[in-house]
């Protein structure tokens, strides 16, 4: 009777001991390599993950772990020391001056029309009226005529977020005829419809227009939509993508931040349609 009861217990205990030992040995091996942890903005995360992978290739004993959670988490974790580097997709506010920011790239939004559309520029109010359905025909605006085809982005896109914040309109107020997912799709729609208006990340708008796609990026508040205007922070609809640290970075963290800002990763930045800080 006693044997019958104690037997499974003893078996259980040895199993527990074995699994604890296995876990500990695994834990020991997992911490052999040095790890840089980044947390924060989900807009910056895919970019940093790619930059991290490329950096790891030349630093075999280093691991770069990128985690998401939003810009405010990036600030909080960098401050608390939970992360070596925080990712923040906006400039630091006055209350965050205890952190140091390193701008990695810019994420900008430009409005695009078909190349044959005679409209040269739109004011802030005109854009709001068009996207909220108050103005429905191009003849109400100026040169040209025909029903305006409004193209909006799908929920959750960073360009949608930037657009809504900048014009201070609610997502539910936008009266769109077409809803698209990404920049390529948006550009395809505009290029195929002379009456359409939409917005895409400025990097892809300028690149595609340069490649001869029949689209026309509109100036905003009198500033031409160019990469230079974005870099000089003159273009209104732009946000910074920043890496933030609590104290001046040292050693490999410093090296990694410099690498992320360097020309060696320009192709990765452009591949996600952001504007690099370098040339």
């Amino acid at each position, binding site marked *: 009777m006693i044997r*019958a*009861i104690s037997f499974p217990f003893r078996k259980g205990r040895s199993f527990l001991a074995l699994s604890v030992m296995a*876990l500990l040995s*695994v*834990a020991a*091996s*997992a911490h052999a390599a040095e790890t840089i942890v980044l947390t924060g903005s*989900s*807009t910056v*995360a*895919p*970019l940093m*993950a*790619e930059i991290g992978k490329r950096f790891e290739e030349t630093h075999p004993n280093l*691991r770069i*772990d*990128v*985690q*998401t*959670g939003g810009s405010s988490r990036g600030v909080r974790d960098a401050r608390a020391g*939970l992360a070596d580097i925080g990712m923040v997709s906006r400039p630091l506010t006055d209350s965050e001056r205890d952190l140091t920011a390193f701008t990695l790239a810019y994420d900008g939004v430009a409005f695009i029309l078909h190349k044959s559309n005679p409209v040269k520029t739109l004011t802030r109010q005109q854009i709001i009226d068009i996207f909220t359905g108050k103005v429905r025909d191009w003849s109400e605006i100026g040169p040209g005529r025909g029903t305006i085809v409004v193209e909006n982005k799908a929920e*959750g*896109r*960073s360009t949608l977020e930037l657009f809504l914040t900048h014009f201070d309109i609610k997502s539910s107020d936008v009266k769109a005829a077409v809803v698209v*997912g*990404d*920049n*390529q*799709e948006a550009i395809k729609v505009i290029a195929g419809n002379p009456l359409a208006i939409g917005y895409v*990340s400025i990097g*892809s708008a300028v690149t595609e227009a340069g490649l001869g796609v029949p689209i026309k990026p509109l100036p905003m508040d009198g500033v031409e939509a160019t990469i230079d205007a974005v870099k000089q922070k003159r273009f209104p609809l732009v946000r910074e993508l920043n890496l933030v640290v609590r104290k001046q970075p040292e050693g490999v963290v410093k090296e990694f931040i410099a690498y992320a800002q360097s020309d060696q990763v320009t192709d990765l930045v452009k*591949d*996600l*349609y952001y504007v690099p800080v370098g040339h």
Partner: protein
Amino acid sequence: MIERSRFRFDGHLLLVWAAPLTITAIFVWIVGGVLLHGLDQLSWSYLVEAPRRAGRQGGIGPILVSTLLIVSVCLAVAIPLALGAALLLAEFVPRRSTGARIVRLSLDVLAGVPSIVFGLFGSAFFCSLLGLRFSILSGGLTLACMILPVLIRTIEQSLRGVPNAYRMGAAALGLTRTRAIVTVLLPVAAPGVLVGVLLGVGRAVAETAALIFTSGYVDRMPSSVLDSGRALSVHIFDLSLNVPGGDAAAYRASIVLLLLLMLINGGMLCIHSLLKRVMGISAQI
């Protein structure tokens, strides 16, 4: 009069058929849409290669491994705990006792809690307090917490479904309670337990919100359960929201997730019917 009743009969039939047809149509629409958008580039190399260009190229090898590890950790922890709790509720505590009622009520409340809340709990408890940080272990444990309520309640129900004659028979043969549970009750309740596990796995594999803050975002091949590992659902979420041009890749990964779920469900249903046949025979003897 006859005409009218026949007409009404047809109307009812139409209504009865409309429900399953609508559900089937929605299913076909979703699966068809996903297949249409992502099937063209699906290949074996996609399943084993590492992702490149933020997941837009390459494969999902490390992500599949992470997903399976997370689900394994989750089940390894959740099944024994759920069995224990369900046995206590079904066999050892009087059904209407205050303690059992409180436990049952709290389980039902927990079953309705949104997964993001479990994610935040897991992030605070497993990742920070227990120091497991972003890891497959944290993710699996969080998922275990999430599926425990459903698991316990289904296992409890299936244990309750075992006829009392079995318990009395076991007692008449002089079996101890432990022995009766191990050799009689659990085998008979096994098909029901499996259904509970099936429901739990379904929830676990498809979970995104609870995993983003626990198992994390790293898409490297995990070397242990203490590494951060991206789950398939997190990968799909990231591709469709944060990666420009990631839609096609998101559809491709969705197909794999659908296949994985169907594979798990199919496998479990096979075991289920097998168990039922075996248990049915033993019950007759």
